[in-house]
């Protein structure tokens, strides 16, 4: 295995990232991994061992739905998109996340100087 995640993703964040990527339009698993990597400017690399179980879990929870369709290269791939429920979930969770990071940031502000 070439490299580890540069970050340890906090519990539940992967689901949020996946849903964010999927919210941009129907997309297959491989492309999701690629997109997360690109969007994080290569800082995050999602392992397949986490990606696919997460996709299946989200699908089971009816936050995502999937259908098989041809890619631009003509191969059949499983494309995921958000359900209405998924969309609402993503909105709520993103707001939660923002609030959480704001609060955490507020508290941690200036810590680095203090610690070092």
């Amino acid at each position, binding site marked *: *295995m*070439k490299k580890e995640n540069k970050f340890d993703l906090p519990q539940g964040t992967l689901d949020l990232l996946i849903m964010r990527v999927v919210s941009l339009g129907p997309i*297959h*698993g*491989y*492309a999701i*991994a690629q997109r997360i990597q690109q969007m994080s400017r290569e800082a995050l690399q999602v*392992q*397949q*061992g986490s990606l*696919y*179980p*997460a*996709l*299946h*879990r989200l699908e*089971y929870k009816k936050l995502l739905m999937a259908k*098989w369709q041809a890619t631009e*290269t003509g*191969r*059949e*791939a*499983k494309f995921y998109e958000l359900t209405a429920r998924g969309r609402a979930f993503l909105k709520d969770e993103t707001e939660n996340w923002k609030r959480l990071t704001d609060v955490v940031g507020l508290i941690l502000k200036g810590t680095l100087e203090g610690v070092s």
Partner: protein
Amino acid sequence: MSWFWRLFSRKRMDIELDKELRFHIEAQVADKMRSGIPENEARRLARLEFGGIDQIKESCRQSRGTAWLESLLQDVGYGLRQLRKSPGFTLTAVLTLALGIGANAAIFTLVNAVLLRDLPVVDPKSLVRLGNWADCCQNSGPKQDGNYSMFSTETYEQLKRNTPEFEELAAMQAGFENRPVVVRRDAGQDAAIPRMGEFVSGNYFGMFGLRPAKGRLISASDDVAGAPLVAVMSYSTWKNVYSGDDSVVGSTFWMNTKPVTVIGVAPEGFYGDRMSSTPPDFYLPIATVPNQMGGKGFRDPTQNWLDIIGRVKPGVALVPLQEKLSGELKRIYAKDPHFSAADIAKAHLVLSAGGAGTQSMQHSYASNLKLLMWIAGLVLMIACANIANLLMVRGMQRKTEMSVRTALGAMRTRIVRQLLTESVLLAGIGGVTALAVSYGGARMLLMLAFPGDQHLPISARPSFEVLGFAICMAFATGVMFGVAPALIAAKASPADALRSGTRTTVGGASLVQRGLVVFQAALSVVLLVGAGLFSQSLGKLQHTDMELQSKNRYIVHINAQAAGYKDDQVNALYRTLEERFHAIPGVVNVGVSTFTPMEGNDDGYGVHLIGQPDIHIEATNIIVNPEYFNSVGTRVLMGRGINVHDTATSPHVAVVNQDFVHALFKPGENPIGRSFVADEDSSKPYVIVGVVAGTSYTDVRRNGKRPMYFGPLAQPSEVGYAGAIVIQTSHPTTDMEEIARRTLMGINSNLAIQKFETFDAQIAGRFTHERMLSTLMLLFGGLALLLATLGLYGVTAYSVVRRTSEIGIRMALGANRNFVVAMILRSAIVQTLFGLAIGIPVAFYGATLVRSQLYGLTTVSGSVLWVAVGMLLAAACVAGAIPALRAASVDPVRALRME
């Protein structure tokens, strides 16, 4: 897509998952190739990056909600396949479980039905019985210990009048001799049929809170002198004998030759006021006794013949109530001239729970059932040990399989779960089989305990509790002994397990396994010794000299008073019986008496010699005809027997038995010509004219301890009518019952046979308890031995398999076959010896616990011990020899190559 649908589209989902992951890899490969990496290299890198595809698939399946169910189904399917693959293991395990649990469930069914069940009446908890032991059937006079449980009609009425603490206080007949009523549907030509009838007080049904199934039940107004004769029929009689015919209610039946109106049918399931193998067919009011039962006894106000059960008012304390009732009893007995001041001072009664009625059956079976529960528990322990051993052996055999599966990506939890599923599955199959065994077993127990009785209100069908009990036992065993091997298997590091293969040089079987085998051997020696003790005890009982002759003797019971005979008619009947039965070809002697040897009944009275009022003994009185002693084979030792010259007008005489002489006379004193007085009628002393041998009458255990006196049938006596005819023939007569029936019909069509038995069968009937115990102990002992042998065989065979290569090396190095056989056998025998070392002292200790249930044995006899030890050792040799011979036939070259 519902999860239900998903479950069944699992295959498709798996294909899609595979396709999805494959697409991912292909896309990765394509990307890499685009960046200039050659295809082969790109493919290799992609695979590496992707990681274990099967693990990812498994995680994906996990994240679907149906995973647990899917894997459960998968595990069950796999488990079933595994079990089918090793039928020997499966069969042994299932049989072991089925026998162990089935035996327990069967015993528990009976314990539940006999000991724990209340009567099917309203609020059985508030019922209280006056008295705490089962007295039967009819007696009078003071009791030695002053504890009374059976009462006269007068006593009942007084107690009822003076106890406002009871909502209702009801009385019921305490027991019967054979079948007390003969019943005929109409005055037509069909023969009268003997049936069980029970006399009950008018408030009997009201006290129990019962409602009729049809018509009405007996009420207080039916239970007064001069009321029209009525009866209530039991539900099962109505259904089974009269096929639920509605016209039965209100119609006239002829009972004991009197017209009786059946006013109703008792509720379904009500089997009377006690558990009995002969539940009542008819309930009759006590006030109709004089009309129904023409004979003596019931008329006597001092005759005790009633059990009393009452429903106490809420909040009544039982201790003061018991004091009060005992006081009442003393007052009543103070008026009775038969009671001395000491008898009155001693007189008391003890209240007991009345919810189960009069617990005569419970009293007589409690100790046996408890013993059987212990025994069944031991067998279950042996069975569990066997299962534990089998599962452990299996767990270890499959260590390699588990390692391979772990290496291939199976999750540990999944493996443990799968092994558990397998053992629970095994337990489930065992449990279901156990229920079948339990049903059969309970039926067999009932047949052994109550031979020939179809009317017992006990069902062999396992109750809800028993069902739960069996299933819990099965699953507890399965889980308990499935967990250990599962954990062992799961802990195995795949690399180690795969590397070490199957080669081992040490023991093979673990200490735990050997310990289990030792434990089994110990338990089975205990059970075998127990079985030996009980059959020895039975043998001793049956071969006790009962001082009688039973060959070619038949005993017919009739009920003259039920057939309508009066005091002044019975003597003529006795003579007719003698004449008619003598007229049958081949008949040698015809005895007529009140009771016969080994019948189980007796009629006791206080007796003292004239001139010696201080020595007061209780003696059994039987009235007999001249041929009686010859007919039952009782020898006359001194003086004479009863003869034809003893008539109503000749002197009042009696023949006494040896024990009577021992109890009242000094050694060497001549009893002939002496006179004694019995409480039955103190105005008429008996003159002793002869002494007979001490034939056993109720129980061989009491042989030689029961004083008896025999009066002539022809002389007036207070004892009831003679109901037993003993027919001695010169050769076996198979159709004697039919001949007797025809002979009796020829005398009077109301003379029905109440009971017909050969003398031998009557004697055997007295040993039913002992025979049941001995048979069951033998069964359980055999079962234990079988299970222990299986266990020993399993462990030995397992160690032989494990040591195949070791044995191969030994043989290659020059060990010969005998050495190998001896080596394997030795370990089997050593384990058995350890088991014996533990089991023999336990068996000796156990023997002291059951001493009271054994006859003529105080400890384990040498012969029993040697037989038990010999059987166990023989079983051990067989269990060891089979694997030992297999080990000796190992071809060293093949054994070494096998790895």
